[in-house]
Structures are given as C-alpha cells and as structure tokens.
C-alpha cells in the first residue's frame, strides 16, 4: 500500500516536471514529436533507476560510515556521469537496435537535473532501498507522462495559427503552464 502511495504521489501529485521543475531542458527540448518523447522517456527511466540504486548504496556504505556527507554532490554527479558512459558502451555492444533508439538521448541525460535531483531527494526523504527504487521508477514514469502529453499537444500546436510574438518558446511555456494547472487537480489525493 505504501508503495502505491509513493507511486501516485510521484506520478501525479508531485510530478517531477510540472510541480517540481526538474528536467525542464529535455521537457522543452525534445518534445517536438511523440516518438522522440518516448525514446527520451525510455533512456531516462533506465538511467534514473540505475543511478538511484547505485548512489543509494554508495551513500549508505561509503559516505555515511565515514561521515563525509558533504562530498555528496561531487560523488553523485561523478557516478551519474560514469554510469551514463557505461550504459552507452554496454548498450552499443549488447543491443545495437536499442542503442539506435536511445543512443542520441544518453549523453544529454548527464545534465538532466531530474536524475541528480531524484538521487538526492531519496536520501533526504530517508527512504529504504526498495522505496527508493519504486520512487525513482514512478518519477521516471511521471516524467514520461508529462513529456508525452506535452509532445502530443505541441504536434497539434504546429497546425494552429499563433500570434507572431508568441511563436516558439513563449507558447510552449504557456502551454506547459496550462498543463501544470491541469495536474494541480490531483493535489490532495495523497499528501
């Protein structure tokens, strides 16, 4: 039951993009069409779960016992950067077709603040290992949901006539605002 609460809270109530403002860069950058949005979601889900798992174990077995919690930021970002590189190399060797689909998005993920954000949030919220993994997976699904809906809207937006000054980023931001307004309807379901 607890895990279901974590899931609903992370996907709908505290949506990583629309309520917490993490991962805005890919949200605005790679949301021009639905297939690219799905590809990005796949890559983010994969890296986010793996990164949270590794950083959680490092925090509990190295940083906490030696009381070097202040090294958290440096250690976590290095782990994420190394992990992304490793995933890229392994994927290239093991599954070229998957690499074709996700490859372009992988280097972008190092600077996706959602990945580092989730890794730190999990420690701050004092989750255990299983809760952390569930939280990471649900956050990634929430990211994918927001990204895919937004990409769908933007595809339609291409066909409408928009005032000249609002074309491009401004209209995308206002659209995201309305989407965030819709997601606010979920607030209060889970605390």
């Amino acid at each position, binding site marked *: 039951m607890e895990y279901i609460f974590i899931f609903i809270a992370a996907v709908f109530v505290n949506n990583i993009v629309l309520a917490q*403002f993490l991962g805005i860069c890919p949200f605005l950058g790679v949301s021009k069409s639905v297939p690219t949005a799905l590809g990005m979601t796949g890559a983010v889900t994969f890296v986010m779960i793996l990164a949270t798992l590794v950083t959680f174990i490092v925090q509990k077995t190295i940083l906490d016992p030696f009381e070097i919690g202040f090294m958290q930021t440096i250690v976590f970002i290095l782990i994420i950067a190394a992990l992304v590189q490793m995933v890229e190399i392994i994927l290239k060797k093991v599954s070229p077709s998957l690499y074709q689909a996700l490859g372009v998005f992988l280097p972008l993920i190092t600077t996706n*603040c959602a990945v580092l954000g989730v890794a730190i949030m999990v420690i701050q919220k004092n989750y255990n290992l299983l809760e952390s993994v569930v939280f990471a997976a649900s956050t990634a699904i929430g990211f994918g949901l927001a990204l895919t809906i937004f990409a769908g809207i933007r595809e339609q937006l291409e066909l409408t006539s928009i005032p000249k000054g609002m074309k491009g980023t401004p209209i995308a931001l206002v659209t*995201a605002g309305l989407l965030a307004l819709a997601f606010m309807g979920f607030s209060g379901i889970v605390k």
Partner: protein
Amino acid sequence: MNNWQNFTKGFFKENPTFVLLLGMCPTLGVTTSAINGLGMGLATAFVLVLSNLAISLVANSIPDKIRIPGFIVIIAAFVTVVDMCMAAYLPSLHESLGLFIPLIVVNCIVLGRAESFASKNKAIPSMLDGLGIGLGFTMALTLLGCIREVLGSGKLFNITLYSENYGMIVFVLAPGAFIALGYLIAFINRIRKTN
C-alpha cells in the same frame, strides 16, 4: 573582443535566460519571490566566476578526453562551498532554495561557459565573462521573482503593496511560473526585434 564587452554581453545580448534559454529549472523553480530569485542568481554567479577562473587556469593541463568530467568536478567543488556557506550564514534562504543549490552542478549555464569560454581564454576575461553572465542570470531571476511575487501575493521584497486577498495565487504556484516566463520571453523578444 575587449574586457568590457565580455562583461556586458551577459546582460542583454547573450542573457542566459531570455536569449539562450539555459538554466530553466532554477529559473522556474525558485522564483516564487524576488528574494529567492536574487539569492539563487547570486549563488550561481559566485560559482560561475570561480569555476571560470579555475578552469581557465587548469584547462591546458587537463587531457582532452576527460575534459568534461574534470570541469564537472571543479564546478561541483565550488557548489559544495556555496551550499555549506549558505547553510551556515543564511539558513532560511538555504531552506527555501533547498534542492536547487546542489543542482547548480547540472545547470547548463555553468558547464556551457566553462566549455565555450573559460577553456579557451585567459583568467581575467573568463572571470569577467562569468560575472557578466552570472549577473544577467541574477537579473532575469529577480525580475521573474518580482513579477510573480507582486501578482501572486501583492508584495515586493516582502513589503506589502496591496492586500493579499486580491493576489492571483496561481502565480506563486507551479503553473504561474511557466505562464509568467512565457509572456516575459515574448515581451523581451519584441523589444529585441525593435532594437
């Protein structure tokens, strides 16, 4: 390009938020009030100046292959300094900025300047570039913070302008951030076109 241009280009011509559209997460996330925007902007500016300085000094001795990880470690070190100083001297601001302080590490502006400017230039121009871009970012964040605070809660830097009952609360919440920034960018584009 002379030093003065290095310093001033960040304010308008290459403003990181309005023109280059970098560093969107903190821009939207912390600007619920003018004070938060100012604090976040100055913290980022501090990291930018010092990381630009350090990177311009050591860039030649870092092998090309591990350039990016090297830059990230330098940036992360300065972010940790800011994080700890802020926790010690400005605990309330540290509380309200929260997660966004450690996330300066992945702010594209900082790594972007390191890669595109500091690694190719000498120490003094790099510092001025960092200061200019940092202050341009601070200006953008403070402006957005002011707009959201005035429209949302009727205050400016915590001074009441009109009764909170007339404020549009949506501007303090998440959707208001997107909508306010969208219209602000449209407005700035319009000014840039007429110039």
